[in-house]
């Protein structure tokens, strides 16, 4: 955090009392932020990150590593387009290999942002204000990574526009009855809405950056980006209305995207894919992995950029609780699937599940079950869910587990289908592995740019949950007359 003498804020004179933000004491609501924050200090702290003159060396190192990864991914994609999908491990019977696994993985990651910005907004969760901008940015970058895989998966990438129902003289239309097409609509609608939500929410903060900007370039860039925001009462009124409406519209999208992704599998008759719990189970899993990624990124970011007083242990603890809750939902779905596979009495379905747990991919299944169901159980203990190292470890494992979940679903069911003579063991190629690894490069490149140039915390929103914004509100009941 760089605060020059000129911008040194007049810190609040009222010293914030030392409080335990993690307190579960029902007689009080602990403050959402720690330290002596006021409206000025929050602006200074958040803008200071984007305004610092010299970019820290650590940022350059991380950026170089990310760009390298991204370059590897694009090189692999170029190689793929030049040679065809034969460079992947995909083949009969596993025609859907890593690209689809990676697609579902990244779309899943991209679920936390809109959940935090839309659903938690409707639930009046004030704590979301410290993390929503960050999580929404992560969402958009994850969706960018996700979008690449189905696009290159079609083989002839230059024909990708055929995915969209574009009127044409040949009367050639995509198959509207295919969930793969619904995916195109669901994911692009989600990407557009998330982007709009994120950007609209950022306009007042961009205007703040514009007003504080020193150089011409910054003034013009932030000036264009803030779209003439003046902060008048009328603008705020419309902004709040639009925000509420967008939140309402984005809420069903949080459910619909991963539900439609689950349809890709569940509408088929493949054992292990065709089961009715898939839509809500996929949504729970997506939120699970999305929150794990937010925590994984947030822990180093708040440390590195000096945001510990805005994103407190309380925020992290709540996210860990959500991870535990959604992890249990995922565990519930695993258990019910297993039970119904037995209860249904269909021998193919029974085989599919026994094969998952005891077949040649048992290692993948048990990696998934351990990472997604067992490891998050640590979060039952307050000591562990408020320990940064434990949090970090669990969240990384959750992300590993959620990748394996998609691998288990996609690959295991296909590798042993109805016809034993066509069974095969899927092996990824180096191109598969490098493309996926490189996609993290793209993700982190975008993310580092965001951290460097845009307001990482929604300043305007955070200020509304400061105690100063509610001065004079006593909400305590008197002792009852008895």
């Amino acid at each position, binding site marked *: 955090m760089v605060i020059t003498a000129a911008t040194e804020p007049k810190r609040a004179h009222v010293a914030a009392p030392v409080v335990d933000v993690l307190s*579960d*004491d*029902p*007689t009080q*609501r602990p403050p959402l932020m720690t330290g002596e924050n006021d409206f000025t200090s929050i602006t200074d702290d958040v803008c200071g990150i984007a305004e610092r003159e010299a970019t820290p060396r650590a940022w350059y190192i991380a950026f170089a590593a990310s760009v390298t990864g991204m370059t590897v991914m694009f090189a692999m994609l170029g190689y793929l387009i030049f040679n065809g999908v034969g460079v992947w491990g995909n083949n009969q019977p596993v025609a859907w290999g890593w690209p689809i696994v990676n697609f579902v993985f990244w779309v899943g990651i991209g679920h936390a942002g809109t959940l935090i910005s839309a659903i938690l907004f*409707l639930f*009046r969760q004030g704590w979301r204000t410290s993390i929503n901008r960050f999580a929404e940015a992560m969402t958009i970058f994850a969706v960018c990574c996700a979008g690449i895989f189905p696009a290159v998966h079609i083989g002839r990438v230059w024909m990708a526009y055929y995915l969209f129902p574009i009127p044409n003289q040949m009367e050639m239309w995509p198959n509207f009855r295919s969930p793969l097409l619904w995916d195109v609509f669901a994911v692009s609608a989600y990407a557009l809405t998330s982007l709009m939500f994120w950007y609209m929410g950022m306009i007042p903060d961009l205007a703040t950056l514009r007003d504080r900007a020193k150089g011409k370039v910054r003034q013009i860039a932030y000036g264009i980006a803030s779209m003439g925001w003046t902060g008048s009462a009328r603008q705020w009124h419309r902004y709040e209305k639009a925000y509420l409406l967008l939140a309402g519209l984005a809420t*069903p999208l949080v*459910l619909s995207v991963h*539900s439609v992704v689950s*349809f890709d599998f*569940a*509408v*088929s*008759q493949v054992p292990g894919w*065709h*089961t*009715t*719990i*898939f*839509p*809500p189970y996929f949504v729970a899993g997506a939120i699970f992995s999305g929150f794990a990624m937010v925590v994984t990124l947030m822990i180093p970011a708040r440390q590195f950029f000096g945001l510990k007083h805005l994103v407190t242990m309380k925020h992290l603890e709540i996210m860990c609780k959500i991870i*535990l*809750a959604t992890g*249990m939902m995922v565990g*519930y*779905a695993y258990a*019910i*699937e297993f039970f*119904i596979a037995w*209860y*249904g*009495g*269909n021998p193919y379905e029974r085989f599919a599940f026994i094969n998952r747990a005891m077949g040649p991919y048992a290692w993948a299944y048990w990696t998934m079950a351990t990472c997604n169901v067992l490891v998050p159980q640590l979060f*039952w203990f307050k000591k562990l869910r408020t320990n940064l190292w434990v949090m970090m470890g669990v969240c990384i494992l959750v992300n590993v587990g959620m990748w394996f979940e998609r691998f288990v679903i996609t690959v295991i069911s296909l590798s042993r289908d109805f016809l034993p003579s066509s069974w095969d063991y899927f092996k990824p190629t180096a191109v598969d592995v490098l493309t996926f690894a490189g996609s993290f490069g793209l993700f982190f490149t975008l993310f580092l740019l965001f951290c460097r140039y845009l307001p990482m915390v929604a300043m305007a929103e955070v200020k509304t949950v400061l105690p100063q*914004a*509610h001065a*004079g*509100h*006593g*909400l*305590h*009941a*008197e*002792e*009852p*007359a*008895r």
Partner: protein
Amino acid sequence: MSAHHHVSAPERTRVTPSGLAGRGRLATLFGAALCVLAVVLGFVQEEGMARLQHGWLLAVTFFVTLGLGGLFFVLVQYLVRAGWSVVVRRLAEHLAGSLPLMGLLLLPVVIPTLFGNGQLYHWADPHELAESHLLQEKAPYLNGWFLLVRVAIYVGVWTLLVRAFNRRSLAQDDTGDPSMTIWMQKRAAPSVLAFALTLTFFAFDMLMSLSYEWFSTIFGVYVFAGSAVALFATLVLLALRFEGRGELRGIVTTEHYHDLGKLLFAFVFFWGYIAFSQFMLIWYGDIPEETVWFQQRWVGSWKYVSLLLLFGHFLLPFVGLLSRHVKRNRSLLASWAVLLLLMHLVDLYWLIMPTLSPEGASIGLIDFACLSGVGGLFLGGLWRRIDGKPLVPLRDPRLGESLAFQNL
């Protein structure tokens, strides 16, 4: 934000309903009489026993799901440390309080399975078992004794949870001890887990196994969604009732109705989402062993019941409850609540009755007798529980927050 609030806790005498015990006893007597009438009709009418069992199951599951909804509401309020809902929480506690009795009323449909009576649960019929290979595969799970054990576990868990939470909440009225709240906050998470598992398997056992050859992994979630809709509809109606009587006047305000309305709307949507997921995947997959269940619900007049659910349980209330104006208008909200409560009944009817009358929807005198009989017992218990106890958790640490609550 709104202006400064000066909130004072309500007086105990004002929020404590009285004179309900007598009415409660009357309802119990009336209910018991109608239950007897239902049984008599069951013996007298042609094929009456089968209808009696179906009608009884419908009536009991309707009120069990209301109780489960209440339990869910109470647990979740503690789990998420909610403040706004304290003034309506006692109503949900009382609803959940019906679970031990309603659970006991499941025995009349469980015990016949022990004696090979397959009129309700066809899997219990020894002839069916002898002929069906599929059923033999499922017999380790679908057998009378194991069902009895499982139902005892479900009802036992619910009873324990209800007692643990309700007793502490009531005790806090006298002591104002925040450690009660802390105790419940700590136990809320594992309790929700126990709740989810018992509700799921309750739904599998009592409802899904009516067509023992059919299965659906989402079924537990479906029944949960319906229960939540019914709960919020009931909470709205109960709050209005006691606002009218005076106990909750000035305490449950438009703001609370607005929030209850939002949750009602949200769960209408959630129910629609879950129902669609189940239907669409089965329709699209087109596997006969799964589609048969929806096929049965599309035969004859069942088709109209299915369509009624689509419109009455989802599309119409979705549009109807969308507006903020409706959620803040007591009579409009109440009309939607009444409709949705009815639709929950229709939903359970649609789940249960096609095995009784596959040729088309039919309603018998016995169904009404069962419903009003069990309903009388339910209401009798509810009024007696409500009588003489504060209807607002008087010294809940978050009561002030709830009394001063405003939507923005």
